């Protein structure tokens, strides 16, 4: 009886961890998406964070938090390195370039046996990640998104997304924003990779390939890109639903795929648009309170 309970709590707890991790990741991806960067680089950045942090904790004996930070920084550096050429590419080409990046990282991980363990991966990773840490990261990301959205920075980002030529004419440094958001998104990916690695006891190259990038990308898109809570909702739904469909590996894939297609076809605003009808129309009307009775600034 106790064993059953223990097992249940064990898997349930892991689900919570996964949800929190994916929420964190979702906002990271959202940063890039907010200026139309359809990035498939998340897998690659996660891999960099994962392998480097594991190397430090297992072979260098470094403290966990520092190792995670280094993972994030390495990913950010990589993003910086490829940024100059990659950011110049438009839409589809940008996506393909980030896709190539993820695959190159994956292949290196697959072959660099001495450091990454090759195809076998790395086992015996100390499980240092704790739920509260993931909760802090998720909450932090959510707050960051909230803070930026409601400010003049958020307005600039929305303008870039819709019309980047006009935005430049307004004095907005579009390339600068793109760069910062891309690197930040990579930083989040690196940290998430490091946290994921120390959650799972084992990592392998296939954990951080195209599929991971696609999943991460689908969190904000499915949840509803425009809504603040969109990435959160998308991450939770996409993480929990496959667990509910655990009874068959194959059917899980089929049903998840059908679900995504359904959302894309019938809910263009993402899952959040189901809830947000009232929310949206309220926000459309009373916008800014003009200086006669100055209470708030321009909240979105």
């Amino acid at each position, binding site marked *: 009886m106790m064993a059953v309970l223990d097992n249940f709590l064990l898997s349930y707890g892991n689900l919570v961890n996964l949800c929190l991790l994916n929420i964190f990741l979702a906002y990271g991806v959202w940063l890039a998406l907010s200026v139309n960067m359809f990035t498939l680089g998340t897998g690659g950045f996660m891999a960099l964070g994962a392998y480097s942090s594991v190397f430090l904790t297992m072979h260098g004996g470094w403290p966990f938090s520092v190792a995670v930070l280094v993972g994030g920084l390495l990913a950010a550096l990589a993003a910086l390195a490829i940024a100059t050429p990659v950011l110049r590419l438009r839409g589809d080409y940008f996506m393909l370039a980030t896709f190539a990046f993820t695959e190159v990282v994956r292949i290196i991980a697959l072959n660099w046996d001495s450091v990454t363990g090759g195809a076998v991966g790395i086992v015996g990773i100390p499980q240092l990640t704790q739920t509260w840490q993931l909760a802090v990261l998720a909450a932090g990301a959510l707050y960051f998104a909230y803070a930026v959205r409601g400010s003049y920075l958020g307005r600039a980002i*929305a303008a870039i997304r819709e019309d980047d030529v*006009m935005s430049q004419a307004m*004095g907005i440094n579009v390339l600068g924003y793109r760069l910062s958001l891309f690197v930040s998104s990579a930083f989040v990916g690196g940290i998430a990779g490091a946290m994921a690695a120390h959650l799972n006891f084992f990592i392998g190259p296939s954990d951080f390939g195209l599929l991971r990038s696609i999943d991460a990308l689908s969190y904000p898109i499915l949840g509803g890109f425009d809504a603040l809570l969109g990435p959160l909702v998308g991450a939770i739904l996409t993480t929990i639903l496959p667990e509910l469909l655990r009874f068959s590996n194959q059917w899980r894939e089929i049903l998840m795929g059908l679900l995504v297609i359904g959302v894309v076809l019938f809910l263009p605003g993402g899952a959040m648009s189901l809830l947000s009808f009232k929310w949206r129309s309220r926000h459309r009307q009373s916008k800014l309170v003009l200086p006669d009775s100055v209470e708030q600034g321009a909240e979105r």
Partner: protein
Amino acid sequence: MSGATLELYRIAKHFQGVVAVDSVSMVAEAGKVTGLIGPNGSGKTTTMNIVTGLYPTDAGRVTIDDVEISRLLPHQIAALGVARTFQNIRLLNEQTVIQNVMLGAHRHHGASLLDVILRLPKMARSERQELRRCDDLLALIGIRHLADVQVGSLSYGDRRRVEIARALATQPRLLLLDEPAAGMNFSEKQALAALIETIQEMGVTVLLIEHDIDFVSHVTDHIVVLNFGREIAEGTPAEIKQMPSVIEAYLGTEDA
């Protein structure tokens, strides 16, 4: 805001064999309203795009108050106090008038990223300040009553005014208007002319691209005429109207 002097010296631009601008040299004097006219395809909009940095010029140079800006990026040029409107009105239609105009105030926000994240008082103060300024601008232009209206639902004339308000929100020294009167009826054009005069009184240098010679004559102090990518004439409106080269340039293309 005090106006800047814009000078173009032998700028040129061609796209894959098509010569959009052959060689253009002109001056828009500080505080004055200068018109840039010419038939379709004469290179007016390309010239404007070169000034704002959208395209690099193939030759020559562009200077503002004798500072060369030819190699700068658009947002850097904007930061120097150059603002513009677009021929096909580029506003964010899903947002309200005040939200659009506030975008123009972007570069004046004093709050840094840290201020934003930590929600320090500086951010709210900066926001209030810019909001007040934009509100005043809306009042100046006469669209304050439309502040919370979604831009997409406005008339063409009102949208044009919102765009101008947004350009003014950047606190420019030089304002470039790309065919602002296009598609306007008579009373709208009158209102626009009055608005341009107000802007001039604010001390801003205005460069006006237009098709409509009559409108331009009423509003400008000085006109430059382009044809086939070159300037073919310049002078006061009265002088321009008499010049045979100008009349000839326009005769072939009877504009609406």
